[in-house]
């Protein structure tokens, strides 16, 4: 890979027109009639808010919140599950309306598309005039099926009421800048893109706009980069772009270089001419012709894998792909899809599915069954997939593990696969929080551990009375009842003042075979915990003993209210 960044003084990349329909999943759901128009709406995916309606946003709901948090912020909010296929179906008329202006349009996801400005702009009398026409056409197309009329012209920032569609357009050099321009509905003048970008915060590099894209499909590094840059003191794109490209690639690798190019007003992956020979196109003849969507989707999955497999065998990846179909009546449709970063087989199959849903639905306008499905690479980039991470480790390993664990969660339920987070606490069971796989790995807010916010080097304070290590390898939950007896055969108890009735001598009733009572060879304790002594109802007093039994077994026994339980085994 060459280390040359985009030269600020050099020619800008091709000017792009970007059309953005904010909160498209909400708009589409309202038009379908699945969502109420008079209440706030959020769309959730895997328990997290992905898209919010403007009213919900005004009440403080943000993407990434849990469903319950959103409901707390906005009482009465309507919660919908994400349905990208339906969103894509609804977006198809919009894409076709834009196609009337520019045949070379590229869809990023339902709700966001862009096309090169050069030809259409000249024909329609300038960038501003073109954007105005396109936005009006989009609002017509999207609103036609909706209940109410069309809202706003280009630059109408206000949200719309019932069923209307808010569309925004922007023009700038390069797709990244064009997308930001669309957010503000501005036409960036020729040569002014770098200046336009320089004021934006680095967070926009994370790839998601407000309605987010697909978080799973985004490279993980892209999410961490803005955070790291902020901590390094680089708060705006301008400051980041001012760094020398060679230094950026040495510190942040390929992902950092792509972000640096975008921040400077270039393309993340500059087009490499002549790298996509026709031989890389993958086509599938469907005989007998396919009418049903699910059948077409099924065959498209295998096709997507074959297509990307061939590219990767050449050391290439693809970030823009043309999906093409032919029908038995000789109709032919093609549409280009773009993806931030390299397409994975799953992401490509999903996009093909969205497109097929769009074409094969009633609004799609295809009259016959499909006879041919073709995937052609439109932009090919060098594959950087299997590279070692900065701190070692292979990203492909994490992907594989994520897939395997997701499958297990599908089999057994989301709570079945958990990961451990170390937190503060006194007992070994308290010191670990088990977080379902896929949720953020953070200690419980009331049990901080390790570095805490504040001056550098500040750590959470230790817990008084914590059981000393090493920790037991087996935790019994719930702990079975046992008998811990002193030399006189009475249960060992601790008085309110912390006095012990006698040294533990015999442990009886262990739950494993042959647990008929064993002599305690030596013991350490009591480790007395007086938990929440300031709260009369929640207060609990316990004492713990480490007991080495005959035979070398070491166990942890807890005593509370005169009853002993076997808490853990040093197995």
């Amino acid at each position, binding site marked *: 890979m060459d280390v040359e960044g985009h030269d600020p003084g050099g020619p800008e990349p091709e000017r792009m027109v970007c059309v953005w329909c904010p909160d498209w999943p909400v708009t589409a759901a309202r038009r379908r009639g699945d969502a109420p128009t008079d209440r706030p709406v959020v769309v959730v995916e895997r328990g997290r808010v992905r898209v919010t309606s403007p009213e919900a946003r005004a009440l403080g709901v943000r993407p990434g919140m849990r469903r319950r948090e959103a409901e707390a912020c906005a009482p009465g909010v309507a919660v919908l599950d994400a349905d990208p296929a339906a969103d894509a179906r609804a977006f198809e008329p919009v894409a076709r309306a834009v196609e009337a202006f520019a045949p070379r349009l590229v869809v990023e996801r339902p709700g966001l598309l862009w096309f090169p400005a050069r030809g259409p702009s000249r024909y329609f009398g300038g960038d501003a005039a073109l954007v105005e026409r396109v936005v009006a056409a989009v609002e017509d197309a999207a609103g036609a099926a909706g209940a109410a009329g069309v809202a706003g012209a280009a630059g109408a920032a206000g949200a719309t009421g019932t069923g209307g569609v808010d569309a925004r357009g922007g023009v700038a050099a390069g797709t990244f800048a064009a997308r930001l321009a669309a957010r503000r509905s501005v036409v960036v003048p020729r040569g002014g893109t770098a200046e336009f970008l320089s004021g934006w915060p680095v967070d926009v590099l994370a790839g998601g706009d407000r309605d987010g894209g697909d978080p799973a499909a985004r490279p993980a590094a892209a999410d961490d980069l803005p955070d790291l840059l902020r901590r390094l003191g680089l708060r705006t794109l301008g400051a980041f772009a001012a760094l020398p490209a060679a230094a950026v690639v040495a510190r942040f690798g390929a992902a950092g270089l792509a972000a640096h190019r975008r921040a400077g007003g270039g393309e993340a992956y500059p087009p490499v001419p002549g790298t996509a020979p026709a031989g890389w196109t993958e086509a599938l003849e469907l005989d007998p012709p396919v009418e049903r969507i699910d059948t077409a989707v099924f065959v498209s999955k295998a096709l997507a894998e074959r297509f990307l497999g061939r590219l990767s065998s050449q050391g290439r990846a693809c970030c823009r792909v043309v999906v093409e179909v032919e029908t038995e009546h000789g109709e032919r449709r093609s549409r280009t899809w773009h993806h931030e970063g390299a397409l994975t087989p799953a992401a490509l199959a999903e996009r093909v599915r969205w497109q097929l849903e769009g074409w094969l639905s009633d609004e799609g306008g295809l009259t016959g069954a499909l006879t041919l499905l073709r995937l052609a690479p439109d932009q090919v980039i060098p594959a950087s997939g299997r590279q070692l991470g900065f701190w070692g480790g292979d990203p492909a390993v994490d992907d594989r593990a994520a897939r395997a664990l997701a499958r297990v969660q599908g089999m057994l339920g989301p709570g079945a696969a958990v990961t451990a987070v170390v937190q503060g606490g006194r007992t070994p069971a308290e010191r670990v929080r088990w977080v379902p796989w896929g949720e953020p790995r953070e200690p419980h807010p009331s049990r901080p551990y390790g570095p805490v916010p504040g001056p550098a080097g500040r750590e959470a304070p230790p817990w008084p009375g914590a059981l000393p290590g090493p920790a037991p390898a087996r935790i019994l939950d719930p702990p079975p009842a046992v008998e811990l007896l002193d030399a006189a055969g009475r249960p060992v108890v601790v008085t309110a003042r912390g006095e012990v009735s006698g040294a533990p001598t015999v442990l009886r009733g262990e739950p494993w075979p042959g647990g008929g009572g064993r002599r305690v060879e030596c013991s350490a304790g009591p480790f007395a915990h007086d938990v929440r002594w300031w709260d009369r109802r929640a207060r609990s007093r316990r004492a713990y003993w480490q007991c080495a039994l005959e035979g070398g077994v070491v166990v942890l026994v807890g005593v509370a209210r005169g009853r002993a339980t076997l808490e*853990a085994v040093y197995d």
Partner: protein
Amino acid sequence: MVAASLPSPLPLPSPLPPPTSADPSSRGRLRQVAGFATPVVRAVDRILPVAGPAGALLGGGGLRRGSVVEVAGTPGAGATSVAIGLAAAAGAAGEWAVAVELAGGAGSPVRGALGGLAAFEAGVALERFAVVRGVTRERWPAVVAALLDCGGVVLAETPRGLPPTVAGRLAARARQQGAVLVALGAWPAGAARRLRASGRAAAAARGGDGALVPGVVRIRVDGRGEEGGGSRRISAAG
């Protein structure tokens, strides 16, 4: 933290004078730099290195990818600590480790849940460590097979009465995926290595806080590895 990647080999610490074959100091320097630049685990290496005396027991200094290792022992004998040590080896090599715990009543030979804190103290990379809980006997083969696909180390409590045919199929899956299956409890088909924790040395009270420090675990090894069978008795810290 950014999972960035380096497009070029690691930069050398300082410019090197051109080495000549006659100059022994240059050769030494070159060897040193080569050691610095070689990756810790080469692609051809099929071993996940295990630190400490347990590594010496396993033959080849670690877990052979694609093999099945059985770790057994009565409760309290230290089998879990040995298994956790093997999971730490996976994390150190950048691989994932997943533990499978049986649902209560599914014939689990070792009771209780895996101690997350013990895993942390043993050096398991918790961000690459997961536990699958409450797996019933019927689901167990499918779950373990799915997890073997992630190619790391799978610590699986073996249900009692596991049919040898199922065990053989899982062993084949591990071999195919280059994963390591660490079976906690008796493994009915042939395992490459059988580690049997046969008890701990006497626990000792530690000065200072007076806490008990469990003794070292005695491990007996039977193996079909290249070093031949037989059994040995070696102490390993646990």
